[in-house]
């Protein structure tokens, strides 16, 4: 009886300790974000940011655009087979554009960004920590949060919404290739139905808001996981995995919440 009680007590204590750890990590992450993202960048800060825009944004272009193209093509193909049963294949442009702008572009671009750029950010910062580069920077009197973390954070914040725009544009073009060029949907109705049904604020605007939120969350998770990891090879590997898992779950969870608020009439 006594041992059963102490067994449960130990479990409750363990649960409480885990809860405290989570709250503490959230607090650390918030302080980390405030210390690194807030502040006016120096002239050198701009050049560091540009460099990171190249690594985080430009180098992610290929995977994001190619994925956008294929997703647009698949959407058109799947949409056509359903719409043609109702004689509504002329609405294909509307379907492809709304699916991409409202949902698929922000979400899939964010997931790809987490896998391509987020994991690289975590591994890079983590390796800098493991090889004492961050510590030596501190001892030189340079704050690594300002010099290493801030440019990467801001590059992620800016790059993902731009990548999302690219994803949508290429996706709509992919839909055009399959729907109009291959399956024979009338070109005029593909574009005019799209023009008539897509609202700039409700569809494009809300999609971009989603993308900005995902950019904040994914980049924040990636750089914090890199900065806060245990500086060993195993620690880097675990943190990189955590970045992809947490970012993906956060993006999908937040997408539901945002969709409910934006389109669900909440």
């Amino acid at each position, binding site marked *: 009886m006594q041992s059963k009680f102490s067994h449960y007590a130990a479990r409750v204590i363990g649960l409480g300790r885990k809860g405290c750890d989570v709250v503490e990590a959230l607090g650390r992450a918030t302080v980390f974000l405030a210390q690194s993202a807030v502040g006016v960048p120096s002239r050198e800060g701009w050049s560091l940011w540009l460099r990171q825009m190249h690594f985080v944004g430009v180098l992610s272009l290929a995977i994001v655009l190619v994925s956008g193209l294929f997703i647009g093509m698949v959407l058109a193909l799947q949409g056509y087979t359903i719409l043609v049963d109702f004689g509504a294949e002329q609405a294909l442009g509307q379907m492809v554009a709304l699916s991409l702008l409202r949902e698929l572009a922000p979400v899939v671009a964010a997931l790809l960004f987490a896998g391509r750029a987020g994991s690289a950010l975590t591994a890079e910062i983590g390796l800098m920590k493991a090889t004492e*580069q961050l510590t*030596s920077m501190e001892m030189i009197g340079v704050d690594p949060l300002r*010099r290493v973390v801030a440019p990467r954070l801001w590059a992620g914040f800016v790059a993902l919404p731009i990548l999302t725009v690219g994803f949508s544009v290429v996706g709509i073009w992919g839909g055009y290739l399959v729907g109009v060029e291959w399956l024979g949907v009338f070109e005029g109705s593909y574009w005019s139905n799209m023009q008539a049904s897509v609202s700039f604020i409700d569809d494009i605007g809300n999609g971009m808001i989603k993308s900005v939120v995902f950019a904040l969350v994914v980049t924040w998770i990636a750089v914090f996981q890199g900065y806060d990891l245990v500086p060993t090879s195993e620690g880097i590997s675990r943190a990189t995995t955590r970045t992809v898992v947490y970012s993906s779950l956060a993006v999908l969870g937040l997408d539901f919440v945002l969709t409910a608020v934006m389109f669900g009439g909440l």
Partner: protein
Amino acid sequence: MFDNISKTLFFKLPALSRFILTRFGIEMKVNQHMTDVPFIQVEDIHFSRGDNDIFRGVSMIIPRGKVTAIMGPSGTGKTTLLKLIGGQLTPDRGRILIDGQDVHRLSRKALFALRKRMGMLFQSGALFSDLDVFENVAFPLRVHTDLPDTMIRDLVLLKLQAVGLRGARHLTPAELSGGMARRVALARAVALDPELILYDEPFVGQDPISMGVLVQLIKRLNQALSLTSVVVSHDIKETLSIADYLYLIADGQVVAHGSPSTLEVNQDPRVSQFMHGEPDGPVPFHYPAETLYRDILGHDLAIKAG
């Protein structure tokens, strides 16, 4: 003739770079202080990691303008002590004053301002892997000064000349050996001619020629610029040849301190065992464990006999 010139240049380097920095308005506070006030005061430091007590009441006074060595067996927390002095770790109890400022009570901004006056040589070198050798040494000059590029180039080449790696300026850290990386790290640590330099195992992995030059360099830097140097090292011979004062730490406490000559004749068995590198003595060579017989055979000899 050329040898004489390079020798003269070598020993004049610190003074020369200091002269250039001063001309360009870089503040040099070295001689503005009274030299009899200790630069670092470590007061009753307690520090633990988990259940492991690393320091149990360590106190030290590190005088200004001298080379102070901290020695002790492996795992006694010498590097941890340097990190405590640099403000990277916070003690559980006690305080550390650098030039009168309590390091662990400073704001983040004030701590970074204080660190501009320090240089630290890391055991691993800790060079920035995305920059080449030249840019690594130029880094502190670029971020903390407005010197023109030509002047930065000259200063960096002088520093690299001092550590014998002027010709390696275009190499990346990945192309350097461990010893070379540490010499580049030393050039970077002294790039701004700081008031305090913390050396973490500066002699490890150096060949005899580099070792001799490094020993001379640390000594010369200290004399020419009245720097305060703290050297953590295992290399007794080299350290004794440059240290003005020695602290020996073991079991989380300072077991002895004094000038090299007094410690060499110290009768305390812990001190003499370490100073003369004797395997037998109060400081065990083996990490605490059960007996070898028990580990291998599963029982002690005495139990078997019984």
